[in-house]
């Protein structure tokens, strides 16, 4: 039932409840008022006020902003109302109309509860049909692909459908941020299956991506995925190199206190120590962690590892001298 029909029905029910029939003579109104008395009239007025249709005011761009604001506050019904109002007011196919359509589609797609993926998909396709080369069309394609990646009851969706949907975005917008994002999502989805051959394919695809998109803002994430592939494929040197590049390409938001490089230092140090056997490199990153993040939980562990590496080296040296002395004795 739509909102207008619902309001009419609620109104009729209230009029009937208070004994009013609009078709009767005016004295029926008087009688009804007598029956319900003042409190009843006040209550009815309050109910009607609550049901009164919201007056959509403002320009389309203001309504779109308000729609997104409501969306972010989790007020999805209000967001829908704003986007619908903006759609009605904006010229068909204009930027505001597209913006409102995209907002409405996103709301129907991601509101919880009350999501309507079919309706959302239809609206996203409407954006694409109206302006196939527009930015919002790119994001709409990505949204359609992401809908395929949404788990149903917590279960992973089918990989093939995801891969194909992401490919749609990549083919249409290979150098758009939405296309690059789709590419990374596609590879990450493929990596969720712990399969060595598939991982090899993903690694090759990622290396091609890095080659073709050397200035992509997603470079750090791409190198991160390369490092993951190398973990699975047991390529420690390549893994370390990828991790290093990921850390160098990482964008740090200076306003976010939760974000720091300590985790990256820690990962680099441990890979250098245990997988590469490069103690000099490991020491460098452990020391950086200790110096730059002295309150970090891993500092104690880092100090223990520094000590351990000294002990391992010492042990190897003494082994070597033991062997040497045994050799000399043998001679």
């Amino acid at each position, binding site marked *: 039932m739509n909102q207008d029909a619902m309001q009419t029905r609620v109104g009729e029910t209230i009029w009937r409840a208070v004994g009013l029939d609009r078709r009767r003579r005016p004295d029926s109104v008087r009688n009804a008022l007598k029956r319900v*008395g003042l*409190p009843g009239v006040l209550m009815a007025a309050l109910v009607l006020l609550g049901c009164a249709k919201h007056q959509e005011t403002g320009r389309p761009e203001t309504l779109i902003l308000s729609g*997104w604001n409501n*969306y*972010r*506050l*989790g007020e999805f019904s209000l967001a829908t109302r704003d986007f619908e109002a903006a759609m009605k007011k904006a010229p068909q196919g204009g930027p505001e109309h597209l913006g409102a359509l995209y*907002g409405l589609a996103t709301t129907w*797609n*991601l509101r*919880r509860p009350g999501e309507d993926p079919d309706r959302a998909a239809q609206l996203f396709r409407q954006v694409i049909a109206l302006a196939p080369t527009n*930015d919002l069309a790119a*994001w709409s394609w990505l*949204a359609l692909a*992401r809908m395929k*990646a*949404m*788990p149903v*009851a*917590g279960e992973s969706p089918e990989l093939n459908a995801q891969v194909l949907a992401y490919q749609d975005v990549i083919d249409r917008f290979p150098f758009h941020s939405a296309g690059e994002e789709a590419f990374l999502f596609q590879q*990450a*989805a493929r*990596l*969720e299956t*712990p399969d060595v051959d598939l991982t090899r394919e993903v690694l090759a695809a990622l290396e091609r991506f890095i080659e073709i998109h050397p200035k992509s*803002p997603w470079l750090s*994430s791409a190198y991160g*995925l390369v490092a*993951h592939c190398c*973990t*699975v494929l047991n390529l*420690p040197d390549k893994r370390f190199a990828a991790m290093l590049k990921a850390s160098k390409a990482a964008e*740090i*938001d200076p*306003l*976010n*206190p*939760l*974000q720091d490089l300590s985790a990256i230092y*820690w*990962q680099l140090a*441990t890979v250098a*120590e*245990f*997988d*590469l*056997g*490069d*103690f*000099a490199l490991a020491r460098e990153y452990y020391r950086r962690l200790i110096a730059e993040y002295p*309150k970090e*939980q*891993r*500092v*104690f562990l880092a*100090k*223990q590892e520094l000590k351990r590496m000294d002990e*391992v080296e010492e042990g*190897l*040296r003494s082994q070597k001298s033991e062997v040497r002395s045994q050799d000399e004795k043998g001679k």
Partner: protein
Amino acid sequence: MNEDNPMANTQHPTPKASRIAKAWHFLRTYSALLVVSATFLWSVVAILMSRQTQAPADAKVVLRIGHWQLEAGVREAFDRMAQEYRKLHPEVYIIQDAIPEGTYGQWMTTQLMGGTAPDMMEVGLGLPYNVLLGFHSRYFLPLTASVNQPNPYNRGTDLEGVPWRKTYKDGMRNSYVEELQEYMLVPLAQFGIRAFYNKDLLKKLTGLDEAPGNYREFLRACETIKSRKDDRGRPYTPIAGSAYHVGMWEGFMCEPLTYGAVRRVDFNRDGAVGNDELFVGFKTGRIGFDFPPFSAKFRMLRELTEQMQAGFTGLGRDEAVFLFAQQRAVFITTGTWDAGSLQEQARGVFEVGVMEFPMPTRDDPEFGGIVEGPVYERPSSQFPFAITRTCKHPEVALDFLQFVGSQPGNQELNRIIGWIPAIAGTSLSPLLRAFEPNLEGIYGAMPVTLGGETIIKWQQLTSLFQVHQIGYEQLANEFAPFYLEHGPREYEELQRNRRRGMARDEQFLAGFRARLMTGQGLEAQSLQVKYRQMTSSRLLVPGLGAALLQRKLNEGTVTNAVGPYEFTPAALARVRERLQSKEAN
């Protein structure tokens, strides 16, 4: 003629009687409505009048601050700080709403939803995080712009000109709400947990002037205390325990013993053990309940709970404090939030001492090989306040929070309460110096539950263990098969929950993307960085770690597998090569 009422023709009441009858009829018909309306009107008038009487007539700006800290000194401290603030701003009057902890969540919700919330509110108690998150975005003002500016009340101090957030000992880490990408809170204190003791009673019963800092000596002192009796022949209790306090002893002394599990099962090498990693470790035979640090944790817990009064698990916080205040127990543990109250209760009766938790030393015959160091404490600021959107003078509310969040203001506020200031460069009372967090050390690594059933089973068994009805061996023998049998289902549910969370992240990121589409200049650039970081950390990466763990699970039970912090033979060979070439050079 009235056909419906045959009496109408025979009786003619007087107009006055008729009016009374009508009034009576009206009252009978609408009595419930009238009672409700009258009560509502009364409450409105009462609230308005009580709010007006709390503020003086000449107050131009009245700000309310709501919190749940009913401990000794907090209300007094706010009143004193408000007085100090009024010296600088005579037109501002600050009133407190101190609400008990038990009802704070409901109170906060109704106040915020009803639009009658105080101007500043302490946030964090009584509501789940996702609800608080919604409240943050709907009802509180973001403070990012302000916390990146210097605090004007730090003028003349060594923090002058420093952005406010950087003047905090923890960099305002807990004030940042990542989901909103905004600083939302102003914390005003730091908390710490330590053991307290009755100095006079300790001296009387054991002859010791100070509490032993070493675990073995501590246990010896406890045994001596247990053997002593008061004038009425009642034995003394070494440690005042309760369901509330036992967790602190366990968390600070026993749990860190499990630190060694990091080297065995921290598969993603992030320096901590997740419950999924520990389960994979158990399932693949890499770790078990026979792991010495795990059994050590429970041996120590048994030794400590043996020093508590009988039936302590059925007692609440107040009962344990009462036992301590009545000088029937020598030791108790609690946080800085209770330190003032404890001292207050002991004033003039006995002297309260503060001590570090008595950890075993490296030469301890039982735990020496397991305790690798002191216990790590993450410094974090608490007692956080937010400014509500309904505040009529948000700039004044912010200014007051800057006043109490400045170096001198925060020091004074916490000096009065007896808490640890949150701002760097502030001084502490001698009692509180013992609470300075220890920034290097070991931490717990035994998150052995996965979900509903394993949590319940574990709680049941550990409760029996705490009251000495079962031993560690029985606990392990009963839990291990249950864990391995029910664990796979709960592990899968963990993964499903992670995937379910994707919808929320996707929802959040779509809203964020819309912001960056409309943003301009530097703001848009900053938003783009945040968007990419969050997309990567929340949507791209989480599935990968799970995939690696799944791979380990698929490989099944292993023997002699190389642990995450062990050298592979290849790596060791490379170390040897490097060493040789280094020495050759």
